[in-house]
Every structure is written in C-alpha cells, then in structure tokens.
C-alpha cells in the first residue's frame, strides 16, 4: 500500500470554492496531461467531492491513493492509470 505521506506528488490542483462538476472536470483535464503512474494532488471544498473523486478514479481507471479530510477541505491523491 502506498503511504500518502511519502508519495511523490507530480501535480497539485486546487479546486477550492468550486462545485460539481468543476473539480472532476478540471481533474480530468489535469490527468489527461499527465503520464501513467504520475500522482495528482487534488484539493476540494465541495462536500460532494468525498464521493465524487473516488468515483471519478474508479470510472477513469485511476487509483485513489488517499482521501483526507482537513476541516472543510478534502485532499486527494490520485495516481493516473494506464489508460
């Protein structure tokens, strides 16, 4: 299992203040520009993101390394899949 604390982040995307579908839309654009195995750190404040980002990773074939709540903020680490 990958340890989120030691995972190397290749790109960070701050979606604070954005509502669905913008975090998923912007994350998909960011992931499209990244290579397989690279890690996107995604910062969200939309409470729906707690369900949306894991669903996005599942549907896209990426791997959700971690989902962490920090107060009103959620921080996700997503490893881009092979596709």
């Amino acid at each position, binding site marked *: 299992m990958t340890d989120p604390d030691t995972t190397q982040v290749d790109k960070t995307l701050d979606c604070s203040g*954005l509502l669905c579908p*913008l975090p*998923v*839309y912007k994350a998909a654009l960011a992931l499209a520009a990244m290579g397989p195995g690279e890690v996107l750190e995604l910062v969200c404040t939309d409470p729906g993101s707690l369900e949306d980002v894991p669903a996005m990773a599942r*549907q896209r074939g990426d791997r959700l390394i971690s989902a962490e709540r920090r107060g009103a903020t959620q921080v996700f680490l997503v490893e881009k899949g092979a596709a």
Partner: protein
Amino acid sequence: MMADQARPKRIALVASKGTLDMAYPPLILATTAVSLGWEAGIYFTFYGLDIINRHRFQRLKVASLANPSGPIQLPNLLGAIPGATKAATTMMRKWMRRAAMPSIPEFIDMAQGLGVRFFACSTTMGVMGVGESDLIDGCDIAGAAAFLDFAADSDVQLFV
C-alpha cells in the same frame, strides 16, 4: 468489478426544457461523463432546442410563474407581472456567478470541447421554424431513430 474494456461507457441524455435552470443538468451530466472517459450525447428536443439555438442560448430565462421552487418566491398572480421573469433570471445568474459556476455558453464550450455530441431534433426544428443556420456550431440534426441508435449502445439514459 472490471469495466468493459471493449468500448467506453456511454450516456444518452434528452434535454426537453429550455429554461436556464433546466439547461444546466444535462450539460453538467454530459460534461462529467466525458471527464470520466465516457461517451456522451444530448438530444435537444422541443423547448430544449433553445439551449443550442444561437439566437437564444445566451438569453435563457427562469420562469417566475408556476415555479414554486424558483429563485424568487411569488404567488402565481404576481409571477405574471412584467419584470418577474427577468428578476428570477437575474437572481439565478447571480447565484451561479457567486458559486463560480460556468454560464450555459461556457458549459456548452466545455462539453463540446471534450467531445459531447449535440443532436438537434429535426422535428422540433420543423415545427418551430428553426433552421440549420439558427443552431450553434457542432450540432448533428437527427430524428428519433438516429438518437435511439446512439442511445441503444449506451449504459445510462436520462430524460431531462
């Protein structure tokens, strides 16, 4: 469960309403679907055709009449007064801007930019006198059979 690798998932949406509020859900769902790697298509029919009518898509309105959930709460009698629709529309636009939500034209750009297919209902065009040159760019004019052909190979179908 493993995703079907043979083809991407697909969503087929029908947009049948032409008010500002009801233009959002099909565009949000389609934009999300393509962000997930799915294929997506929206069939714009009846009043929904206004969403891709180049003379109207930037000026969609929120109904102030017979809309008990609208941005301004008015009895129907007052909802009919001049300016009430404009007030409801202005309020909805303000909500959207405050929430950093894209406008309908912006959502259309986002959706088409990621490959969402837009189908314009040919019957609606004939009934309402809308020509091909009245549509925004990038729409396929299609009848029910063509849309059902697209929808038959879809995993999710929604009527809005």
